[in-house]
C-alpha cells in the first residue's frame, strides 16, 4: 500500500541531495582519465562502479547509468500513490520502450545479428510488449513489426507500407514517436488536472524541437521531401505551417527568429552549425521547466517529477562524460554539450 503523496514528496526532496551538483559534474568532466573519473564518481551517491567488460566500456557504463536511473525511478514508483506511480512508470517505460523498439527495427532494417541488436537495448523489462528478444529474433523487419499486432503498437504495422515505399525507416520511427507521445498523454489522465501541466510542457517542448529538427533536415532534400502531414502527425507550439516553412525556406535564420520563445533561443545553434548544442539547450529548458514547476508547488507531484527529470538529465550528462573519458576528449570540448554543468 502506498504511503501517500506527502511521503513520496518528502522522499523526493531528500533524494535530491543525492543528485550531482554542477561543480561535481564539472569536476567529473575535468578528470584526465576514465580511471580518475570512476574514482571521483566513487565519492558520490553512485559509489564504485565497475568498468570491467568484454565489450566497449562506454556502452557498459551507459547501461550502468541507465540502471541507476531506472532504480531511482522504480524507487519512487514503489512509494508513490497508485495513480502517480502508474503514470511515472508509463511515462518512462513508454519512452524507453520506444527507443528500444526503434533500435530493434533499425537492426532488422539493416540486417544486424540479433545478439548485436539486443546489446543496443536499454536494460528495462518489456512494458507493452511480450519480449524484446522475441521481436529482435524475427526474420525480417516486416515479421518484427507484425509481432506488435495485438499490442498498443499495432498501428506501426500500417506504417510499414510507407517504409517499404520509401525504403526508409522514418515512417516507422515517426509512428513510434506518435504512439509513445499518445500513450504518455493518455497516462496523464491518471494524474489530477493540476499536476498535468508540467509533464505536458516537457513532452510538448521535446516534440516541438524534434519536429523542427526533422523539418530542418528535410531542407536540403526538397525534391525527395515527404509531405509534412505524413512526417508530423502531431504538432504543438510549432505548427505544421511553421514546419512546412522550415522545410521550404532558404533562410532558416528568419524562420527560427520568427518562432516564439524559448524555441527561437533553443534552435539558434541550427543556423550557427552546431546542431548538437540544440539538444543541450533543450535539456536545459526541460531542467528549467522542472525547476520552475517545483518552485511553483514545493509540496506536490511537481517535486517528484522534478527529481526524476533532474535524475534523467544527470544520467544523460554522465553517459556523455563517460564516453568522452573513454575517448580521451578534453573537458572543454564536452562541457558545452552537457546540461547540469551549464545550468546557472
Amino acid at each position, binding site marked *: 500500500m502506498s504511503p501517500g503523496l506527502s511521503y513520496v514528496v518528502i522522499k523526493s526532496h531528500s533524494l535530491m541531495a543525492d543528485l550531482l551538483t554542477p561543480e561535481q559534474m564539472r569536476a567529473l568532466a575535468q578528470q584526465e582519465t576514465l580511471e580518475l573519473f570512476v574514482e571521483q564518481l566513487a565519492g558520490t551517491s553512485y559509489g564504485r562502479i565497475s568498468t570491467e567488460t568484454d565489450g566497449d566500456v562506454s*556502452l557498459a557504463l551507459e547501461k550502468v547509468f541507465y540502471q541507476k536511473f531506472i532504480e531511482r525511478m522504480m524507487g519512487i514508483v514503489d512509494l508513490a500513490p497508485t495513480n502517480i506511480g502508474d503514470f511515472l512508470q508509463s511515462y518512462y517505460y513508454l519512452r524507453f520502450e520506444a527507443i528500444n523498439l*526503434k533500435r530493434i527495427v533499425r537492426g532488422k*532494417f*539493416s540486417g544486424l545479428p540479433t545478439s548485436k541488436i539486443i546489446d543496443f537495448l536499454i536494460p528495462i523489462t518489456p512494458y507493452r510488449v511480450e519480449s524484446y528478444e522475441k521481436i529482435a529474433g524475427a526474420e525480417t523487419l516486416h515479421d518484427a513489426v507484425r509481432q506488435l499486432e495485438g499490442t498498443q503498437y499495432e498501428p506501426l504495422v500500417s506504417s510499414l507500407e510507407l517504409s517499404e515505399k520509401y525504403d526508409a*525507416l522514418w515512417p516507422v520511427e515517426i509512428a513510434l514517436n506518435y504512439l509513445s507521445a499518445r500513450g504518455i498523454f493518455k497516462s496523464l489522465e491518471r494524474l489530477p488536472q493540476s499536476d498535468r501541466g508540467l509533464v505536458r510542457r516537457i513532452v510538448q517542448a521535446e516534440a516541438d524541437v524534434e519536429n523542427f529538427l526533422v523539418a530542418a533536415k528535410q531542407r536540403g*532534400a526538397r525534391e525527395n521531401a515527404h509531405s509534412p502531414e505524413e512526417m508530423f502527425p502531431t504538432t504543438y507550439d510549432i505548427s505544421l505551417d511553421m514546419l512546412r516553412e522550415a522545410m521550404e525556406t532558404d533562410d532558416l535564420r528568419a524562420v527560427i527568429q520568427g518562432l516564439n520563445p524559448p524555441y527561437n533561443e533553443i534552435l539558434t545553434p541550427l543556423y550557427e552549425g552546431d546542431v*548538437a548544442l540544440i539538444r543541450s539547450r533543450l535539456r536545459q529548458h526541460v531542467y528549467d521547466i522542472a525547476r520552475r514547476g517545483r518552485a511553483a508547488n514545493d509540496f506536490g507531484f511537481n517535486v517528484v517529477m522534478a527529481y526524476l527529470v533532474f535524475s534523467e538529465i544527470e544520467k544523460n550528462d554522465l553517459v*556523455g562524460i563517460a*564516453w568522452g573519458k573513454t575517448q580521451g*576528449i578534453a573537458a572543454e570540448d564536452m562541457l558545452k554539450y552537457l546540461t547540469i554543468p551549464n545550468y546557472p
Partner: protein
Amino acid sequence: MSATTGIRPTKGFLMEMKRRIGFIEKGTEFLKLKRDHLAKELTSSIDVLKGRRSKLLEELQVAYRGVTAAYISLGPTEVRSQASALKSSLEIEVLPRSTMGVRYPFIKVDKEPQIAGELDITLSEAAEKVLGILNVIIQLAEFESRAERIADELGKTNRKVNALENTIIPSYRGIIKFIEDKLDEESLEELVRMKLIGGALARRRG
C-alpha cells in the same frame, strides 16, 4: 679475373662495343631526363602534400568535434544503433595508374554511403562532415602513395644513372680503349712485319 677477360680484340667487336656504348650513353641521357622530371614531380608533390595535410588536419578536427558532439548529445549506444541502420557502405576500387613509368594506385569510389534518410540530424551533420573529408583522405592517400613511389623510382633511377656514369660507361670505354690499343698494336706489328717482309723480298730480288 681481368676486366678484359673474354674480350675479342677485333674490329667487329670494337664496332659492337661502340654501338653498345652509344646506346648506353643515349639511355643514360634518357634516365637523367627521367631523374630530373621525377625530382621536379617529387618537389611539387611534397609542397602539395604539405598544404593538403594541414588542410585535412583542420577538417578532421572539425569533423571530430561534430562526432564528439553527436556522441555526447545522443549517447554512444544510440549513435551506434543509428549508424547500424545505414544499409549502404563505402565501396572503393583500387586501380593502377602510371606517371613516367611509375605505377601508383588510383582509388575509384564506386558507392558512397547514403546517410540522408536514417540518421538523426546531429549525427547526419557529423556524418556529412566525415563523408566530406573521406574523399579528401582518399585523394591524399592516393597522392602520398604516388609521391612515395616517385621517391622510390627517383632513388632507383639515380642509382642506375650513377652506375652507368661511374661504372658501366667507364668500363666500356676501358674495353674500347683496350681493343683500340690492341688493334693499333696489331696494325703496328703488321706494318713492321710487312716492312720486314718487304725488306727481305727486296734483298732476295737484289
